């Protein structure tokens, strides 16, 4: 066998120059096609198994597990297509390499075959579109009435979390022209829902197993909220508030057990290029059970209490309502006269302003 092969090589080598060139190199390249495919496939499988432990970090939201399932479903379909088509490509290249005296088949078309391979991808696509569309529709549906509202404001280069406070589930109005160093999210204190709002730039605390409505906006340029473990991503757009609703069903502590990482923490990243600090807009996300979340919220002080300047923005008719947020014992007590006048003025007009 080997000898006959050698002989044929020698034979072609002594043949005309042109034929020799086609003969030797052609065989080598044809062989390489198969070698490449086999070695490449082994390398692909090995590297896949090796890297797999890091794929799609543990999903902690029901919609996330659903899209993960669809991802692996699509992935298995395309992996089959990937292997089959590449196998045919490289195998045919090797199998039908130039052979002296051989003539290729004149085979310009076959309508039946073409119809089959038009219809099959179309059907598979239809299946994937349908499952994907249903998932998308559910994820993007309106948030339920009882959803707990939070706001995430992107700026160069950090996130600011705003909470609706303890008294109601309503975020106060905002206006970008009100932004300053005391009021980084531009909270509008003419809206009484604003009074109990509090903000944080280091952490966002959310309750587990409760629908969350994350309202998202940006102060300066585009940002994008990305919570990898919750499968949440939505751009933050200046001038156009966006939203994403989801439920986290594993607390941070539970995730510590599941991932086996005692230091595990949920993180929120930015995935829309926003300038120099784009790669480090981290804010921690803490998922905890409802009771401890409530307790934590109670400990937080409204932003209003952080600066007398903010309190002065409250219109006279609402000062009475704001008083309880200002009279936190730790707050440096404002001059007595001011407090009194707030109450006095407030009481008279507060009734009138009830909507």
């Amino acid at each position, binding site marked *: 066998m080997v000898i006959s092969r050698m002989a044929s090589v020698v034979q072609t080598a002594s043949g005309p120059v042109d034929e020799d*060139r086609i003969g030797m190199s*052609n065989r080598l390249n044809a062989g*390489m096609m198969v070698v490449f495919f086999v070695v490449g496939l082994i390398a692909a499988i090995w*590297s896949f198994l090796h*890297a797999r432990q*890091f*794929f*799609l970090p543990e999903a902690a939201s029901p919609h996330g597990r659903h*899209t993960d399932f669809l991802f692996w479903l*699509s992935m298995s*379909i*395309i992996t089959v297509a*990937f292997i089959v088509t590449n196998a*045919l490509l490289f195998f*045919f*290249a090797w199998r*039908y*390499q*130039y052979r002296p005296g051989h*003539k*290729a088949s*004149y*085979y*310009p*078309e076959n309508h039946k*075959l*073409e119809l089959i*391979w*038009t219809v099959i*991808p179309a059907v598979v*696509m239809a299946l*994937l*579109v349908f499952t*994907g*569309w249903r*998932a*998308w*529709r559910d994820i993007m549906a309106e948030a339920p009435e009882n959803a707990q509202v939070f706001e995430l404001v992107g700026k*160069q280069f950090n996130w600011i979390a705003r909470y609706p406070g303890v008294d109601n589930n309503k975020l106060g109005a905002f206006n*970008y*022209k009100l932004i300053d160093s005391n009021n980084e999210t531009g909270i509008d204190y003419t809206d009484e829902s604003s009074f109990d709002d509090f903000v944080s730039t280091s952490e966002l605390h959310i309750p587990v197993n409760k629908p969350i409505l994350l309202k998202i906006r940006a*102060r*300066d*340029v585009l940002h994008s909220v*990305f919570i990898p*473990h919750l*499968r949440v991503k*939505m751009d933050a*757009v*200046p*001038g*156009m508030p966006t939203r994403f609703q989801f439920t986290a069903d594993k607390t941070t502590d539970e995730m510590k057990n599941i991932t086996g990482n005692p230091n595990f923490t949920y*993180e929120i990243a930015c*995935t*829309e*290029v926003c*300038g120099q600090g*784009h*790669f*480090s807009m981290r804010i921690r996300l803490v998922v905890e059970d409802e009771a401890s979340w409530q307790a934590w919220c109670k400990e937080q002080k409204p932003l209003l209490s952080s600066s007398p300047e903010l309190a002065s923005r409250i219109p006279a008719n609402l000062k009475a309502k704001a008083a309880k947020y200002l009279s936190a014992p730790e707050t440096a007590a404002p001059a007595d006269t001011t407090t009194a006048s707030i109450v006095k003025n407030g009481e008279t007009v507060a009734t009138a302003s009830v909507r």
Partner: protein
Amino acid sequence: MATVAANSATVAHAEEHDHHEPQSFWRTYIFSEDHKTIAKQYLISGIFWSIIGISLSVMFRLQLGFPAMKLDFLRPILGNWINETGKLDPDFYLALVTMHGTIMVFFVLTAGLSGTFSNFLIPLQVGARDMASGFLNMLSYWFFFLASVIMLGSLFIETGPAAGGWVIYPPLSALPQAHKGSELGMTLWLISMALFIVSQLLGGINYITTVINLRTRGMSFSKLPLTIWAFFLTAVLGLISFPVLLSAALLLIFDRSFGTSFYLSEIYIKGEALPNVGGSPILFQHLFWFLGHPEVYIVLLPALGMTSEIIATNSRKPIFGYRAMIASMMGIAFLAFIVWAHHMFVTGMNPFLGSIFMFLTLIIAVPSAVKAFNYITTLWRGNIRFTPAMLFSIGLVSFFISGGLTGIILGNSALDIQLHDTYFVVAHFHLVMGAASAFGLLAGVYHWFPKMFGRMLNEKLGYVHFWLTFIGIYLVFFPMHYIGISGFPRRYYAFTSYDFTKNIFADMNSFISLAAIFTFTAQWIFIWNFVYSMFKGRKAPQNPWKSNTLEWTAPINPGHGNWPGEIPAVYRWAYDYSKPGAKDDFIPQNVPYSQTPESNLPHENELIGLEKEIEAQNLNDQFKQPH
């Protein structure tokens, strides 16, 4: 109609008609109106740009693969962009990413690919003396050149080139105070791109006009080689979509310089609330991707067209499903315009639109699949000659499949939520659009080099170049999927800020960077081969690949007007390879059926009667126009 247009188009040629005395150096090599020279100008500019573009990627791969590395050795090139501690400046990292994208997409794969091969092959393959307007063609190149000079210049200014990503989303790109790269660099980017678009439009009009009006006798649309179909549809895509990018750029220029608010609303930056209200950054994204998505096919279709030609020639078989290939290209070209918002699933766009665009996007997989199957079936029972061009074409098909398949995942809006703007996307489009189109470009150069320069490229070096590049590109982009599935966002200077990226895949990133450097290094084999063979290569024979298309009937070094005498007439399609009964395994398009009675199919015998008619037509020869 066609005749009238052809007549008017030839007016520009009136001067040159039948003047065969040598022109001055400037008119021959610099301000040339000859499509072959212009093609070479585009090719050499494209190669120049690709070296720059890939070098930039190697620089940021060093940062990503070896974050602790001291990059002081780059200081002679990058100057103060390497800071005192030997680290790459984070602003400049973004500039590198941005310019890599801009250069590779527009200057290499649009101008370098379409500019070279549409210019070179359209007149030669449809049988025309030159482009419809040589003057516009020259203008097209020199607008491109001017755009190139400005873009290149922007790399050297103090605040650095544009740095908001190649998509230049406002407000980042609109506000100089937001980012260094949004200062002068962005202005230059916009000016350069405006000129570039003008160049593309001039070129595109010319390609379309030439294909429609200047086909030789008998060259009906149903006999056009697939290369020409691809260039034609590409030009149509460009002509429709580039103006939209121009308008996007113009509005951005207004926002930057004249205080308008097309894309700006409610912005507080650097301690200041801007007065702009009512604009929408999403508007820009719609306008950008209305070009941006067809752009993917603008770079890919020419590559696919050339691949069809090369695979058929070297398999010694007709391309399988010629009509299906045209139909699928038409389908892709049409769908290309109605899928743009799949780049915007998570921008806050109405989710209902997301559903529609997911549906439309996944439809595009069908014509793409048909193309892939047709290539594979063309190989089946062929008699394959592995020329370097053939190898690159097979490589292209592999990349097209591998990269295209992940598009099925990304086009699914529900799955895109997690994967959007991660390395999964980077891996996907680099395979399907970057590597596949680059392989089309290389395949084209290897295949048509003999026609361009009258000499052969060294084949052995071509084989080595192919295998190193093919393996290298898979080594770069295959592992990148893994990083993306793990959630690594793109355009990150470093992965150290997050627990979910901090301690994993550092080795994988180093590996990818090494593979990128390896692949880049391998390209010098090609550069050397190209330059050396241009002057010292083996002399090319008339028809080195035994190909059917018309360009191989022209002289080895075609002069002005391409064919010395009459332009050949065309009687058959371009894919009569290994026809049963034929003496040889190829029958060029200009061989009439009357000369090949032994191989004619029954319906082809009936066409013999039409040959006289075809020969009698002589409407399109620009040298024969009355003027």
